[in-house]
């Protein structure tokens, strides 16, 4: 066991304080310590993109970043894209175009697409292909995914700094009140 390290970060708009093992990845911390299991664990070598999250607005593979490196950052996971019951326009477009087949890669695809659209709100098809090149879909649903991203482009997004959901707002205002994360999935 390596000594636990105290880190403070913002996850989906909500300040969190976590004791993390130094050798645990950000993916481990999100899934196991914060119970945010929308972010998927798959290849663990940065090939598939299923573990993509936004770190200070930039898409990264959370399997290739230590949890301790996230100290002081703002993280957005797929759970942070929707606002209350209102889906992010990307999520709505993925549903509308049938881009979701088995669904396993979709959290990563959504995060990569959100990052790309925040930098380039009017992408070409080639831009979308490049922006999502780090995200594999084993159902081979690429056509519908690209179609969904292009459809969502131009529709107003809630940006990369997702706000806490309405029912979590009271917690977000008081970091000291952060409960045991294992018992309080978002």
């Amino acid at each position: 066991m390596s000594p636990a390290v105290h880190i403070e970060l913002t996850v989906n708009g909500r300040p969190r304080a976590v004791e993390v093992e130094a050798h645990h990845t950000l993916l481990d911390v999100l899934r196991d310590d914060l119970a945010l299991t929308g972010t998927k664990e798959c290849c663990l070598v940065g090939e598939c993109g299923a573990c993509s999250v936004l770190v200070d607005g930039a898409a990264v593979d959370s399997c290739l970043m230590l949890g301790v490196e996230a100290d002081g950052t703002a993280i957005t996971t797929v759970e942070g894209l929707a606002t209350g019951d209102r889906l992010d326009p990307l999520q709505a477009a993925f549903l509308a175009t049938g881009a979701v087949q088995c669904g396993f890669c979709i959290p990563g695809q959504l995060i990569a697409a959100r990052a790309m659209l925040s930098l380039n709100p009017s992408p070409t098809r080639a831009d979308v292909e490049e922006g999502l090149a780090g995200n594999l879909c084993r159902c081979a649903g690429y056509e519908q995914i690209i179609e969904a991203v292009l459809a969502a482009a131009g529709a107003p997004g809630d940006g990369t700094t997702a706000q806490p959901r309405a029912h979590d707002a009271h917690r977000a205002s008081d970091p000291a009140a952060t409960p045991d994360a294992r018992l309080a999935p978002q």
Partner: protein
Amino acid sequence: MRAFTYERPAHLDDAVALLTENTPDGARVLAGGTDLIIRLRDGTLRPKVVVDVKRVAEIDGSIREVGDMLRIGARTTMTDIGADARIRRDYTALAEGAAVVGSVQIRNRATLAGNICNASPAADTSPALLVFGAVVVVAGPAGERRIPLDAFFIRSGVTTLASGELVVAIELPLPGVARGSTHVRRTRRRGHDLASVTLACSVSADGVTRIAYGSLGPRPLLRVDETGVLADAGAPETARLERLEAMFAEASPSPTSLRAGPDYRLAMLRILGLRAIAAASGRLRPV
């Protein structure tokens, strides 16, 4: 992943001390982590201490002119390199090489310094850095020293970095004469893949052609044509091809690599070489 102690020194002296105290293999430097974390997880590296250098005050992520060099801090990511207006203009091949490393997610973390320290023969930034005469600024127990990149690479994963040393910055000489440059490569598929051939080329107004290529042997190689033959599109085809063959004479692709066979790599090397010379010549612009 095996347990280790995580250190995040604030000063270069502390980082060097941590590396020195834990030599030879007890400490590893963490910058972007896109290579390191894979090897920590698969157990090929088992350090006691991981030294995260991203908050070392003397190591930054800036790209700025210092004297007659362009200095790229060791925290600079591939995304930063690919987006920098000055690198895109004056060191085009480097911007192009950085822009095809991994995926967006990888480029947002991976650093240029980490790419050369990892010393993969297939690294897409190494050929451009060799072409532009990069110098590696290194700090260690004996202070700072500068290593020309051509004298930095030994073979895959092995560099002339001594124990206790770490890279602080990479410097590129400012362009002296008008030149154009490009990076080209072959991969098995479009998108996110390692190169079967990765090549950078610069052509300058004085007729000098510089070509560096990787994924064709244990380390990337730099070859320079000062005869002016390669840069002269009007020179006899046989003379140009002969010159090109001489520059590629030491290419030695692995016979066992799964990415591409040696014959294919050598054939593509010639084609990419010719294409790169034409593209770089077309981009010749005054400084």
